[in-house]
């Protein structure tokens, strides 16, 4: 374990966070919230101080291997959240630090689960920071920093692999830095387009920025108590629904689209499957909830919004789907686990993994009938290495185990099963709202501090796809040699 280098990279992360904190500070000044701006400035000072302390000496040995990659990613997210929570705490707008931490982790991991009972009373600067963390966390913090500073000695691939979601992580162009730049370029342009479209819908600049951040990172923090439903505008709902779906697609496909390789995009198994699942779910739910809304158009709109919000793990809401029929509610819970595409900003298991599970399952069944048959699992017309298949299966196993343990531990608080189960699902899959007490109109404030920390941890596990977070508990990672 190259501890020096890990500390050095952590320091660089803190410096980057200080830079990002300048944005909400500016917003606070703009809205004349001096107290909040002061809290941000203190946070920046603390962050820079620690960052400078860690980066004071450039380590001689800059080589990072897989374990340093995992450790750096996991620790960065923890440290960034811990410092990012400070403004909430310093302004006393959220009095308990555990709550602040929960809120910030929920932001960075693009979960969108909140402990706030009343959102609208918070200051503008803090709400901006809350949503800004979505935007930063969506694409990955380390990947962002990598576009600016070279982190390791050519070996940053380990970091990319630990931070970018999906069973297989590849580069778009030979240089990691250029790859990260392309991805961030696409991300920024798409966010900007959404902001413009929302402005057309009559939202003011602040609200459209905040909601675009929430959509782009597939986070789900809103500045309204009633989320997107507060605007009562079908146009805004459709824009956000469509953009949520777009941000749930693998970003590599947008790159291919830019290159004009339309055929590659259309032939992507994952994309087809994703759109198929979305289409089918919308249809079933729309029919199911038709009696509640009378008009087909309204039912389809609500169904489409909620489905894309849940499958992309965003968590915005236009209606309280807690009151929907059981079939629709169950479909939404299932979609929570499906998640978005690999290589997108969404969470969950990822459609690519589901396809791998399904195809491995099919292969194993066929093998029962033809014990000597040889079959390779294919994805996008290419054979998937057996290691990747086994890795995906292992992932599923650990994921389920964590889900079970989490439900078990938070049930100590004594809430009903629906609340506990969907709270875990909403946090582990980075969605935000669940059902029951944590439904679209509820929140997580009633949980005990222990449960909140546990759920924060579940969010990080979900965002970083299990292994980095678990591996920092392995003693062998920390051994000097």
């Amino acid at each position, binding site marked *: 374990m190259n501890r020096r280098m890990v500390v050095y990279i952590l320091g660089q992360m803190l410096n980057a966070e200080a830079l990002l904190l300048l944005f909400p500070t500016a917003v606070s000044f703009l809205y004349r919230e001096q107290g909040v701006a002061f809290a941000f400035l203190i946070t920046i000072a603390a962050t820079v101080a620690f960052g400078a302390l860690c980066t004071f000496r450039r380590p001689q040995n800059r080589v990072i291997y897989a374990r340093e990659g995992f450790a750096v990613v996991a620790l960065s997210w923890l440290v960034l959240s811990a410092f990012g929570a400070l403004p909430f705490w310093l302004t006393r707008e959220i009095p308990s630090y555990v709550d602040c931490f929960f809120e910030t982790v929920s932001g960075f991991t693009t979960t969108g689960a909140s402990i706030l009972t009343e959102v609208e009373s918070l200051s503008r600067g803090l709400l901006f920071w809350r949503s800004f963390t979505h935007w930063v966390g969506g694409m990955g913090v380390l990947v962002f920093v990598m576009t600016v500073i070279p982190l390791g000695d050519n070996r940053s691939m380990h970091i990319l692999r630990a931070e970018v979601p999906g069973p297989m992580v590849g580069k778009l162009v*030979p240089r990691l830095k250029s790859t990260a730049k392309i991805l961030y370029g696409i991300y920024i342009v798409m966010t900007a387009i959404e902001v413009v479209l929302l402005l057309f819908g009559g939202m003011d600049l602040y609200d459209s920025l905040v909601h675009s951040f929430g959509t782009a990172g597939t986070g789900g923090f809103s500045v309204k108590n009633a989320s997107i439903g507060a605007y009562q505008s079908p146009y805004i709902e459709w824009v956000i629904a469509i953009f949520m779906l777009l941000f749930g697609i693998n970003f590599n496909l947008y790159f291919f689209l830019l290159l004009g390789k339309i055929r590659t995009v259309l032939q992507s198994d994952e994309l087809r499957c994703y759109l198929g699942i979305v289409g089918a779910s919308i249809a079933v739910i729309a029919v199911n909830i038709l009696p509640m809304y009378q008009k087909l158009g309204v039912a389809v709109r609500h169904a489409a919004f909620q489905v894309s919000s849940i499958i992309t793990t965003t968590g915005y809401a236009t209606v309280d789907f807690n009151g929907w029929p059981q079939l629709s509610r169950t479909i939404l819970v299932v979609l929570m686990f499906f998640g978005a595409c690999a290589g997108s900003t969404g969470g969950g298991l990822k459609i690519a993994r589901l396809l791998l599970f399904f195809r491995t399952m099919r292969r194993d069944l066929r093998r029962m009938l033809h014990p000597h048959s040889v079959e390779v699992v294919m994805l996008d017309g290419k054979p998937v290495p057996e290691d990747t298949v086994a890795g995906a299966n292992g992932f599923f196993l650990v994921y389920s185990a964590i889900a079970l343990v989490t439900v078990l531990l938070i049930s100590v608080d004594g809430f009903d099963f629906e609340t506990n189960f969907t709270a875990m699902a909403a946090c582990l899959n980075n969605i935000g709202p669940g059902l029951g007490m944590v439904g679209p109109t509820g929140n997580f404030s009633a949980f005990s501090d222990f449960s909140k920390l546990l759920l924060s941890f579940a969010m990080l596990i979900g965002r970083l796809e299990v292994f980095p977070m678990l591996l920092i508990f392995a003693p062998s990672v920390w051994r000097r040699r």
Partner: protein
Amino acid sequence: MKIIVVGGGKIGETLVEQLAKEGHDLVLIDNQQAVIEETENRLDVMGIYGNGASHLVQIEAGVPKADLLIAVTNSDELNMLCCLVAKKLGARHTIARIRNPEYNDQLVFLREELGLSLAINPEAAAAGELFRMLRFPSALKIETFSRGRVELAEVRLREGSKLDGLYLHELSKKFQVKVLVCVVQRGEQVLIPTGDFRLCAGDKISIAAGPAEIERFFRAAGLLKEEAHSVMIVGGGRIAHYLCRKLLGIGVSVKIIDTDPQRCRHLCEQMPRAMIICGDGTKQELLFEEGLERVDAFVSLTGLDEQNAILSMFAASRGVGKVITKVSRTSLLSLVESAGLESVISPKEITANQIVRYVRAMQNSLGSNVETLYKLVGGRVEALEFRVKPDFPHIGTPLKDLTLKPNLLLACITRGDRAILPGGGDSIAADDRVVVVTTNQQLRDLSDILL
């Protein structure tokens, strides 16, 4: 530049590493997932899994927009096919490794008809290097510039050498020969020395001068060893084949020892004047029987690095004048050198140098070109030769008025047929060839030498 390498074997790996370090965008195509993964983990390059000769794989790798494709798989035919496909897809330049001597004879055809920019043959290149080392055994290593008009010779100062304790500015006065010491290796340190540098025993120094001056200097300094007249080679592979042919050409007697009877027969058919011994070269009995103690030079060229090292150590202990060892894995180089074996060659390194040189020359069709490039001291020092274009801004300026970058030395200027070891009063003229020695890597243009 965008460069695609097909085949991630020994040479491919070195190339990818070297070229990525020079700032190019590298894509490696290999048909083994493990090789790709290992490379991607270690270096900032992109790997693509598949058959490099398939045009679909090449398109995926971006060959149509690539500046250069280098095919270094272990099959000559596959390499040629890769280059052919790449050329048709629109790659600007292609380089193939072609090592079968039969194809080697038709290189002109390949170059012109297949559009190959460069064909490299690591074994032939290694043999060429060995040949030079054997012809001038006093130096550990010898590199040539300006078509042989300037040489860079590496030599180790032994205890009690006449050079021990000398200041560099005293050299030419003492030996009445003008030479330039360009690089000094002292332990782990690598220095580009100035005039007030003091040599001491154990240093390894590189000297630049014309071939005649170098010989005179070596004679005066008591470093000269006689040219080898009989050479024993263990291991009868391709390098041995090429080397033997060259040595026989200048009348040196050659003895090749190999275990494989068929290989021996083949060598014998090809080169009837060489003495071919079929037997185990690692047996001391056999080596003594064949007169190990009477040969001038011993070259170990078996396929195993470890075996080569041991054999060479044994030969050196028996007092053979010149012992050369082939080492393929560069990670072993320092180990071998610390064991006292100083003349070492590494075919993959020679080949990688050749290609890097080509790539650098490709990069600037304007300005003064890199004509020759050698990596010395395990890649820590570079010796480059530039040709001066008429638009070089400092033509005619005396060198003492130019501020050069630190750790950089103008080793030599060749004007017409004359090699000049430059002093402060000399200046650079158009069409000169300038040899620069530096620890500062990645010089691309002559104007890069100025601060």
